[in-house]
């Protein structure tokens, strides 16, 4: 998967709801180019301490293999990870890659998705 230019601007932000937990939010078009621009923020996140990480991808419009690699790296940095807010496209992409367990992808909701 290779991203194209344009579209929604990529962003990343995180907070610390408790001393050993980190909550990361990602949004926009996540591809090789846009992730290069977020290099500094990503480096800071991957240097921070914590036991658990919750990654919220509900605002993500598009993600390519570099973005998937980023999600894995974030999950690798903490002892446990959970991925929330995955839309149909994001969920199915992660499932097809066999990364559901590694990223702590939550089980799909019981009611049918829109």
């Amino acid at each position, binding site marked *: 998967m*290779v991203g194209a230019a344009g579209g929604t601007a990529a962003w990343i932000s995180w907070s610390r709801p408790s001393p050993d937990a980190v909550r990361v939010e990602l949004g926009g078009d996540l591809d090789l180019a846009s992730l290069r621009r977020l290099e500094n923020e990503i480096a800071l996140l991957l240097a921070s301490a914590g036991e658990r990480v919750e990654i919220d991808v509900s605002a993500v419009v598009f993600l390519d293999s570099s973005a*998937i690699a980023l999600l*894995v790296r974030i999950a690798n940095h903490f002892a446990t990870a959970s991925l929330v807010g995955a839309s149909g496209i994001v969920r199915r992409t992660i499932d097809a890659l066999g*990364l559901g367990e590694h990223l702590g992808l939550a089980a799909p909701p019981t009611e049918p998705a829109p």
Partner: protein
Amino acid sequence: MTARAPRPLSVAVLILTLVLTAVLTVLTAATRDHSTEGLLTGQVQQAAVTIGGQVPTVQAQLADAVQVATATNAQPAVFKRFVTPKLSAAGPFAAMSLWRLGPGGARELAHSGQPLVLAGSAAQHFFASVHPSTTLYFTNLLAGGSRFGYAEMPPGDRAHLVVYAERNVPGPTHPVTINSSPFSDLRLALYFGPRADRAALLETTAPGPSGQTATVTIPFGDKALTVVGSATDELGGALLGALPWIVLGVGVVLALTSASTVEYVMRRRVLAEQYAIENARLYREQRGLVAAFQHALLPEVHPLAEVDVAARYVAGVRAVDVGGDWYDLIETHGGRCVLVVGDVSGRGLPAATTMAALRYAIRAYIEQGDDIDTVLTKIGALIDVDRDASFATVLIGELDTKQRSLRLASAGHLPPLLVDAEGAHFVELDVAAPIGVRQHRPIAVTTIPAAPGMTFIAYSDGLVERRSEVIDTGLERLRNAARVPGSLEDVVDAVMTGAREEDCEDDTVVLALRW
């Protein structure tokens, strides 16, 4: 920049600007001259009027003398007593005389001061023209221009008495300064008569007028006085005087600056165009190199004993960077073969070198006799997502035509398609995590029966993925595209056109087998 002849356009700009400058300079100079000329004429006129204003004064004094003479019945002694105090060699009255006009001519009655120059027939001729009037009568210049005379005969003079005076002309050898202050910055020359005749020069300042002059002629008694004047300073001020030079200077600077700018810009443009052409050439060259490189990396597909093989590699639409997709087919002993399709994330040299490393490691492990799940486990050590920021999806399978079995294992890779008489369906596989990501469970191997007449299609995600689409849509599209009759090559062609997005940016790899 190397020294080369300037371009025609910059030369044209230079010439045009210089021409414009020349025109403006000339216009400015002409305007300046015209305005100073007007100013000068005005000043000289005023000077002339001031000088001409002396006439009534002289007239009045002469008229008084006539009155005295008339009242005393032209007694010479009385006349002399009256006029002598007014006489002075340098003043307006160097000599004064009383005359009576009669039918026989003019007769001198009294005289005081220097001897009169006007005499004889010239005097008779002059007095013949004198009549009672308000005008002061002037003679022409007398005695070679050193003396002139004037006569006053008041209106209503029934005694026919005329007072005639003569004045010395200082001449050019005795220049005088006109002290009246409004004209102290003018250089003037006064001429008797209607023209600035050298012979008729009355008075001049020291030095006389030069350069730009104005000439004014005013009535002077019954004759005329011509005043010629020039200014000692710039009448319009120093700035106005210098303006043409300023315009010329600025214009030349502007001409040189604009011509240089045009030249510079044009050279840069030529340079930019040359770079653009060179860049286009380099780009084409690199595309060619990339295609050659990838072609060299991917193996020729040899037909196997009982298996049809078809393979495709199509680069993504940009194709400037090397990609990380590959396929491989390895014949092992006992009529078995191992098939591999892989996709390293990212682009460029890192992806290509990782791909090469994985491909050859897999070959080596297969050569050593490792089973397919062992191979996948072992190659996990070659790539690490934390260290390399990339991972690889790999599908590996072992086909045993004798046993009619196909064993498959997938590390993050999309399921292959099986097409038979009943239709097409994807193989259900337990997908392990991609290579480079820690595995949570041992890698599973799925065994399916390989009935004859089956077509097996393995591919990379470029075949089925489209932006803003769930992956399942693309998989379904592939499934429908594969259900075509014909040779294996026909099926692969159908799949490439039917499933793959036009202008797909991702590389695509297809490996198909039919047994």
